């Protein structure tokens, strides 16, 4: 039996499976948030649901052989998504301080 350079050759898809599940959890977090916001503010809920699909697909994208590390842009995209949501949250919170929220409407 030749020595395997790569653990994935001996044991395919355990670490990869866990990582895929982590992507799924992350996508579900966006889906749950989107669904919760959708109830009161479809304008904000639909884009967040769309983002959950984006994150889901990012986790499903195959890795090119030999370039398992080359996922930087996907992680950068996830970072940009969270930071963008934070920015929108800040802006809407200060714009609508008096009368409930734009993202989550109180009452």
């Amino acid at each position, binding site marked *: 039996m030749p020595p395997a350079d790569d653990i994935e050759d001996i044991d395919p898809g355990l670490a990869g499976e866990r990582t895929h599940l982590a992507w799924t959890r992350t996508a579900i*977090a966006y889906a749950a948030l989107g669904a919760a916001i959708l109830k009161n503010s479809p304008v904000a809920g639909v884009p967040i649901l769309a983002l959950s699909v984006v994150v889901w697909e990012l986790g499903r994208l195959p890795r090119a052989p030999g370039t398992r590390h080359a996922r930087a842009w996907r992680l950068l995209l996830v*970072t940009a998504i969270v930071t963008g949501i*934070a920015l929108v949250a800040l802006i809407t919170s200060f714009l*609508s301080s008096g009368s409930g*929220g734009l*993202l989550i409407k109180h009452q």
Partner: protein
Amino acid sequence: MADTSTSESPPAPVKASDGSEPDARFTFANERTFLAWSRTSLALVVAGLAVIQLLPPFPGVPWGRHLIGTPLILLGAAVSVLGYREWSGNQRALRRGEPMRQSNLPRLLAGTVTGIALVAAALALLSSLRGH
């Protein structure tokens, strides 16, 4: 522990300064850690948003919700960006076979959340003194 012994393996397309392809398990684990920080960051942002937009106002302290929620949202944004930087630094260390630097994210998270909790407690107290 740079990977020089397994010269049989096809050379990975990497920059010269970039070391060698690390064990796939480490790459996967690093990515999962990033995703966990990313979820934490999303939770912080959503918590801040909920405090500002869902909570009824503190009696007597109209700016109270913003005082709690805004730092939570900012912390969420910071955790997200720092989580990416940490992933990037860890991946570089793995490629070069260098030790990974100790993460300062747990300290930042614990410290800021503690601070926000103290502010929230003070607000609740102030509100019960001022209101009614």
